[in-house]
């Protein structure tokens, strides 16, 4: 049992940076062990003695030398699983819509069902706790869970439902065209105009659904304030962000992003993929394309090869700024996208997408690092 006490104390003081922390741990372990012996002598119950002895330790996080933030802890409630499943499915449903509309709609529906079950059960539980156990802290904790998951779900639902509505209207238009014997919608010459109109419909529907969701959200936030008396609510997404980047933003995490090789290496990998894909395209692997196609040749040797060279120079450290490579890559992918647009090559869209992801990632990195340096100051 002495080792168990030692392990617990070491864990609780794992962030203790004070000079004499070893001496401090030794003293506390000694006192708690004495307390354990005393309680065990009375009750002869190891577990009871251990728990009671540990309780006498108190809260060391109040000590200014300890960096840990104390989290509220309650035994997990089964209905919380439905909330988590609802939030994950809401994000997953949005992705699914792009792959398969029906499957996407089903996943979004499942997400709403899962969240509703979890939320209503947890709400009932919180009411019971408030009225029967009089534990307001636990009540607020559960209500906070419901609303913070709801905040995240709402964003994905708003986007998913607007997408689904747009696609529904698109299908209705297509059916209307076919019914009026105008032929398939894809055979219409002015396809671009239809596409443009659908894009406008999407934006309008998206804004309408956002307005509906935001007004609903405001009403629910008023309800949240009435129930808990708390004005601020942090979404699950924000909590994850804080967990990853702000509260636990220690040197280890910072080093992953700040490494000089990080962005040039990814740029090199993506550029090499792009180069291979263009070679396959020029050798006719994807179909009958003229091997001496000028667009491919320009893409390969004027755009991709210089990007590869810049990436290698940046990795070796001869080129100081690690942020230049992704931007060069982004520009080159735009050029490739335009040049190979008519060749049905995947190199253009995929490399462009990867460049966007890389640049967005880098911008987040810059913002996080700036925040970190401001915090340090």
């Amino acid at each position, binding site marked *: 049992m002495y080792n168990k006490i030692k392990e617990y104390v070491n864990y609780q003081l794992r962030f203790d940076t004070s000079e004499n922390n070893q*001496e401090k741990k030794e003293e*506390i372990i*000694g*006192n708690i062990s*004495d307390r354990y012996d005393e309680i065990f002598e009375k009750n002869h119950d190891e577990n009871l003695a251990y728990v009671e002895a540990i309780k*006498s330790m108190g809260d*060391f996080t109040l*000590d200014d030398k300890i960096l840990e933030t104390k989290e509220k802890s309650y035994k997990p409630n089964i209905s919380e699983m439905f909330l988590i499943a609802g939030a994950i499915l809401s994000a997953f449903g949005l992705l699914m819509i792009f792959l398969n509309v029906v499957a996407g709609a089903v996943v979004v529906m499942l997400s709403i069902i899962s969240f509703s079950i979890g939320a209503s059960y947890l709400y009932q539980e919180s009411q019971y706790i408030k009225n029967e156990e009089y534990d307001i802290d636990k009540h607020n904790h559960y209500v906070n869970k419901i609303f913070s998951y709801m905040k995240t779900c709402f964003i994905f639902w708003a986007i998913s439902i607007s997408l689904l509505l747009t696609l529904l209207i698109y299908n209705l238009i297509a059916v209307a065209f076919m019914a009026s014997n105008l032929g398939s919608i894809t055979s219409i010459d002015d396809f671009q105009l239809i596409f443009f109109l659908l894009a406008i419909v999407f934006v309008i529907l998206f804004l309408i659904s956002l307005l509906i969701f935001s007004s609903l959200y405001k009403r629910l936030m008023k309800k949240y304030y009435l129930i808990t008396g708390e004005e601020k609510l942090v979404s699950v997404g924000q909590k994850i962000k804080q967990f990853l980047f702000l509260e636990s933003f220690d040197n280890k995490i910072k080093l992953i992003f700040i490494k000089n090789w990080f962005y040039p290496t990814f740029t090199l990998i993506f550029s090499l993929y792009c180069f291979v894909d263009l070679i396959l395209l020029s050798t006719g692997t994807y179909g009958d394309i003229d091997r001496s196609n000028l667009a491919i040749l320009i893409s390969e040797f004027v755009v991709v090869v210089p990007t590869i060279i810049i990436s290698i120079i940046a990795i070796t450290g001869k080129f100081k700024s690690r942020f230049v490579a992704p931007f060069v890559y982004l520009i080159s992918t735009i050029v490739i996208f335009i040049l190979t647009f008519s060749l049905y090559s995947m190199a253009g869209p995929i490399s462009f997408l990867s460049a966007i992801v890389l640049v967005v990632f880098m911008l987040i990195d810059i913002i996080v690092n700036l925040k970190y340096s401001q915090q340090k100051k």
Partner: protein
Amino acid sequence: MNIFGDLLRGHTDMILLSVLEKNDSYGYLINKQIEKLTDNEFSFTEATLYTSFKRLVQLGYVTTYWLESDSGKKRKYYSITSQGLQYLTVQNQEWKKIKTIIDKIIKA
């Protein structure tokens, strides 16, 4: 119980120095003595005890030394200094004054 505890915690330094005034002691034993004197109604947590002693050592009211018990356990003993004794005297006088004032108000 919380208000009661908070009130006592406001006088942690005086309580700890009073216990040490009698003889040198270590964390667990100090707490046991407090429990005994208060009929098990009050005791400090390790965290409160440690931070209070840290402050008292920094102020020069208490010194520390390590001793090994018969059972082989190493214990950190606290000992009150002359400065600590002076501080305790002042604290006791102040406490008596406060007690008299509050008693007068309550009994009036």
